[in-house]
């Protein structure tokens, strides 16, 4: 039982950190630049495809990841320069429509290039097995890599946003673009850079998740919703909030899927438990979000007053 809990905790951590990579980009673009970007999930998808293809082509996962991340960042920048920057000044709803359109187009474009069927991506051979963390406790090596990478990115990002002048200027530009310009900040270039960074983070997440999940069209949407849940729980615009929210969602979701059915089997007849258990487990994170917002309507770490 302790092993089960330990393993679940690591799974939750791993899932949470991946969500964080996505949520961080989203919080940067949305919380800080005040832009609702539904195409964020598409960047995740494109990143995953690029990493998978580059890995297959180069034969090296590290090289593939690097190439894919650079490629996705470039794609993100292109998107920003060509379309999205026209939407910053628009109201949120126009942004929803515009980025939804991009999402549709990305999905179809990817389908066109790579086909409708999921493509396989494999973890580097060296990491494809389990490692023994404690005597008798095995854990997949690849998931450990994800945990490490997620933690590293989290720390770097937090420093960048809260501790550097660049981060301050981005936040300033977001809350009052005109005033930030009047203070001498080239907001446009800054936002492009942030967007590229967000895209790169997406690609890191997509590339790392590829071998674990399937690389397929539409993979970005459901995870996008989760990323939104994360940043809303954490408080929009707060990197710290995104991290806490991501870990919370990761752990609650993972634990819920194991423990709720177990619990229900104890409490009620088996057939009822079999249908109620998974349903309750599925809504757990939404219940969590609703509860958080009920007590704290601005999320756990409100970034604006």
């Amino acid at each position, binding site marked *: 039982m302790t092993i089960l809990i330990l393993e679940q905790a690591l799974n939750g951590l791993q899932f949470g950190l991946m969500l964080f990579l996505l949520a961080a980009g989203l919080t940067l673009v949305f919380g800080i630049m005040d832009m609702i970007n539904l195409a964020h999930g598409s960047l995740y998808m494109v990143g995953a495809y690029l990493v998978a293809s580059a890995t297959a082509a180069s034969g090296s996962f590290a090289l593939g990841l690097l190439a894919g991340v650079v490629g996705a960042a470039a794609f993100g920048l292109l998107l920003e320069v060509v379309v999205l920057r026209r939407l910053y000044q628009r109201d*949120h709803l126009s942004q929803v429509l*515009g980025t939804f359109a991009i999402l549709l*187009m990305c999905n179809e474009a990817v389908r066109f290039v790579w086909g409708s069927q999921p493509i396989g991506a494999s973890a580097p051979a060296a990491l494809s097995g389990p490692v023994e963390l404690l005597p008798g406790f095995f854990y997949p090596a690849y998931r450990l890599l994800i945990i490490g990478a997620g933690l590293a990115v989290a720390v770097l990002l937090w420093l960048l946003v809260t501790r550097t002048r660049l981060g301050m200027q981005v936040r300033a530009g977001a809350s009052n673009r005109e005033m930030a310009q009047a203070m001498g900040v080239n907001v446009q270039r800054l936002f492009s850079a942030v967007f590229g960074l967000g895209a790169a983070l997406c690609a890191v997440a997509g590339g790392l998740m590829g071998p674990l999940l399937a690389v397929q069209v539409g993979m970005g949407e459901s995870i996008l*919703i989760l990323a939104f849940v994360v940043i809303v729980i954490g408080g929009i615009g707060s990197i710290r909030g995104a991290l806490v929210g991501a870990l919370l969602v990761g752990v609650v979701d993972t634990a819920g899927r194991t423990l709720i059915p177990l619990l229900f089997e104890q409490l009620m007849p088996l057939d009822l438990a079999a249908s109620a258990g998974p*349903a309750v487990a599925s809504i757990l994170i*939404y219940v969590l979000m609703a509860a958080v917002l009920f007590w704290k*309507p601005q999320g756990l770490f409100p970034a604006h007053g």
Partner: protein
Amino acid sequence: MSTPHLQTQHQDGPSPLDHRLQGARAVALLLALVALPPLANWLGADFYIGLASRILIFALAATSLNLILGFGGMVSFGHAAFVGLGAYTVGVLMTHGVMSAWVAWPAAFGVAALAAWLVGAVSLRTRGVYFIMITLAFAQMLYYLAVSLKTWGGDDGLSLPGRSSLAPLPGLDLANDTTFYYVVLAVCAGAMVLLWRLLNARFGHTLQAIRDNDTRMAAVGFHTRRYQHIAFTLAGGVAGLAGALLANQSGFVSPALMQWQQSGMLMIMVILGGVGHLWGGVIGAVVFLLLEEVLGHYTMHWPFFLGAALLAVVLVASNGLMSLMKRPTWLKASGRTKEAP
């Protein structure tokens, strides 16, 4: 030569609080819609009568969303849940042998409105994106509830034994696609008139002003949450009614109706048509579904072209298709600043 307008008194255009039904165009549209079934029959394309019913039903649902999203500034990302509830109400009543539309449709309205009232009571504590997400959360809960209720089909959904009956009324057999279409058309037209009156009445003015500046509305003495709550409940009820019609149209009810993608689609329709335009929901639904239908006819990759069309609309029109119809907005290169949500 223009003079500074400090002392001249001129109106800066019609008040954004008021909305015109655009009588002439509305009547023309209505006539065209009335003429559609005979035309389709004549062309041997009666499939399109069913499609038109479906589009009108979505127009109704989108319009109900526009009431809260466009005029109330409440961006609900869970509106499909109310549509679904309405549909399930009809479906469940039918499995218990209740076929009468006179019972089932008001019940659908009532159930959805009640749910909206409850969801609104909690959600309206939050603002902006938090509101978007909490409405999504409730919709997801309802969705998973529907998935797990095996008695009512669970994920498989529920096939209805037939259409509701307008029994005491003679000559109206809803099983006939054309009759059904005219009933749907009547409901939609009625809803539009009601919405128009509502917006230009005190309630509408209040709602729109709350959207613009709720702090100030509270400071002059409006119980802002109450008006928003009423609008939210009303919109939920109308969505439920649309759901009841939808269940009848397709003869099938499933949790897929409540999925977040459906809520998203309703939202896209409203934004496409024009947020806060009387006709925004209708135009959005019609254009969106027709585009889907037409593009799908030509290519497997229709979502790409649909996306391109939507993107073009966003970039060209400041606020959906309806804003293209009003001259002043697109003559002015307007730098709209942020408002809701």
